[in-house]
């Protein structure tokens, strides 16, 4: 398959996910539009239930059968909808590496880790057992496993959580993918290990000239590590643009509320954290208008009735869906990754 060199590595056009239910289908994701350029990184942030995982699963073709995915997804210039399921799975497996949230359960406890790293290479690259083994050992050492050759035959329970996640990254890299997706890849790890794994992902992305998608509920994970950021709320893209720009100059009320909910280093001790009142909308009772309207401090009548269209900021790559956006030159905010620990919606 030829790949168009200038096309984006991943492109989602008007993607929606529905779960059939009565009286009407649940709209998990609606009209998702984004693309990831080659060798760039995208952060996807949102609260639990915003649809992050469903978005990734739908792209990877592993959403549950009950979910209907519509819209166009193309990877490396190839439209996935035209492919047969088996062909499509193999294509995605070769082009996209993925690292999931929980390293404790993402590795099969009954299979030696090396084999789990090597298996996709045998299948997709047609490597011999020996070649796949060597490749797995090489990648295990790339991700920082000492004595990789010896560790090849060890079982997952011999490794710590951080080590397991490194092994998962090695497995994600084994087919030399052009895109690596880290779906909450550091959420289950403790803070120092989290930083190591994020640094590793970043280094690998740069060295291997891949694209990277970092999915997180934690703004700190995405800040300073990604070129662009996509803010999901209630199954919709509410803001999307260059990371530095979005963090410095948020236009959507939700993004702004999220940023203010992050604890700052310069806040006096014992000062109250700002939180966002209320709960994210449930799938069954999603408002017709802006999904954030029920929690928004400035929501007007129109916000509750009409879904705001995507507006384009002066910087044409920065887009947001808000009827009453913040002014373009909001005060400077620190995109400093040191504030890393403000979990979205969990600041309390």
């Amino acid at each position, binding site marked *: 398959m030829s790949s168009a060199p200038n096309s984006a590595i991943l492109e989602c056009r008007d993607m929606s996910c529905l779960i059939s239910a009565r009286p009407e289908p649940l709209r998990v994701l609606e009209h998702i539009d984004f693309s990831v350029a080659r060798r760039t990184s995208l952060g996807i942030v949102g609260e639990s239930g915003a649809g992050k995982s469903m978005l990734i699963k739908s792209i990877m073709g592993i959403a549950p059968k009950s979910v209907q995915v519509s819209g166009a997804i193309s990877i490396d210039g190839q439209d996935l909808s035209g492919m047969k399921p088996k062909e499509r799975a193999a294509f*995605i497996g070769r082009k996209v590496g993925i690292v999931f949230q929980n390293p404790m359960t*993402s*590795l099969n406890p009954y299979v030696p880790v090396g084999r789990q790293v090597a298996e996709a290479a045998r299948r997709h690259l047609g490597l011999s057992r020996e070649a796949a083994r060597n490749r797995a050992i090489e990648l295990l050492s790339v991700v920082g496993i000492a004595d990789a050759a010896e560790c090849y035959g060890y079982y997952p329970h011999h490794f710590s959580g951080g080590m397991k996640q490194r092994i998962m990254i090695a497995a994600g890299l084994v087919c030399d993918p052009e895109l690596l997706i880290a779906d909450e890849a550091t959420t289950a790890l403790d803070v120092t290990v989290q930083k190591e794994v994020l640094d590793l992902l970043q280094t690998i992305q740069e060295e291997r000239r891949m694209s990277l998608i970092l999915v997180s509920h934690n703004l700190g994970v995405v800040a300073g590590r990604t070129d662009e950021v996509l803010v999901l709320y209630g199954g919709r893209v509410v803001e999307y643009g260059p990371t530095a720009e979005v963090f410095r100059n948020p236009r959507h009320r939700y993004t702004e509320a999220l940023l203010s909910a992050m604890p700052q280093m310069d806040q006096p001790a014992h000062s109250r954290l700002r939180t966002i009142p209320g709960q994210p909308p449930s799938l069954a009772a999603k408002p017709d208008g802006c999904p954030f309207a029920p929690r928004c401090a400035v929501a007007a009548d129109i916000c509750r009735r009409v879904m705001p269209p995507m507006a384009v900021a002066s910087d044409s790559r920065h887009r947001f869906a808000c009827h009453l956006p913040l002014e373009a030159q909001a005060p400077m905010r620190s995109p400093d990754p040191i504030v890393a620990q403000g979990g979205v919606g969990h600041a309390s």
Partner: protein
Amino acid sequence: MTNLMPYARAISGRLLAGIPVFVLVTFGATALSSLAPGSAAQLILGDNATPEQIAQLNSAYGYDLPLWERYLKWLANLLRGDLGETLFSQQPVLQVVFDRAAVTFEIAFLAMLVSLISIPLAMFAASHPGGMVDRILRSVSSILLAVPTFVIVVLLSYIFAIVLRWLPATGWANLSQNPLANLRYVALPVLCLSLHQTAYLYRVARNEMVASLQEDFVQVARARGLPLGYIMFRHVLRPSMPQILTVMGLSLTYMLAGSFVVESYFAVPGIGWTVLTAVKSHDIPLVQAILSLTVVIFVVIFMLVDIGYAIIDPRVSVS
């Protein structure tokens, strides 16, 4: 598995742990004869026995001795490998028990093999849950589980022996003397014994595999674009094995201990049938020997299952 020491230690440990169980059960079996009204000799010889006959039997088998002495004597005899003769056929007890046990083992082993067919079926059904095959097999296995063995026995022998005349209805040929005839005689008992086990094993394996398919590592494997068939073999079968193994162990004990229905119906000279006739004819030495053998078998089977866990699951150590 290069180092077999832990296994050797585990096996000897389990066997040692089995000794108290063995003592308890065999002592119980010895005591059983004392629980019967009158003396054991009275029970064996019936109401018309003369006092001389009773005295003779008592001295021959030691039924007039105190219970503990009788038990110790029995144990000593066991260690010498001579448990005396059966009361009625006057054959060496151990000889009879081993001959009959071989027959039951053959049937149970073959039935076990037949029931293994449920595992590939379960793999297929689990990989397409809710599909046609899954639904059909679920109904079939429910029906098989609901029908009691004695009905299955009658039904199958009616179909295969009387209507189709493919297989003999009853009888037996020794495996060592005439293997082909043995196969014909063994077919119906094996089929009857395995149907329940197959259905049960199928249900456990299918549910276990459906559960394993929900595991994160299966999602990961699917996201890597690995084909479902490969995932079933590499990532689903083994995590489901401990459950399957547990059921297989229980099935085997069930088939060894519960073989008397099938054996007596088909007149197969196995231990199930033998113990039944021995109980009916108050052949106490024979009953006692069979009980003891059963305990040993159970201990060994459970030990093998435990060792199986350690082989299957790298997180379980044998010791």
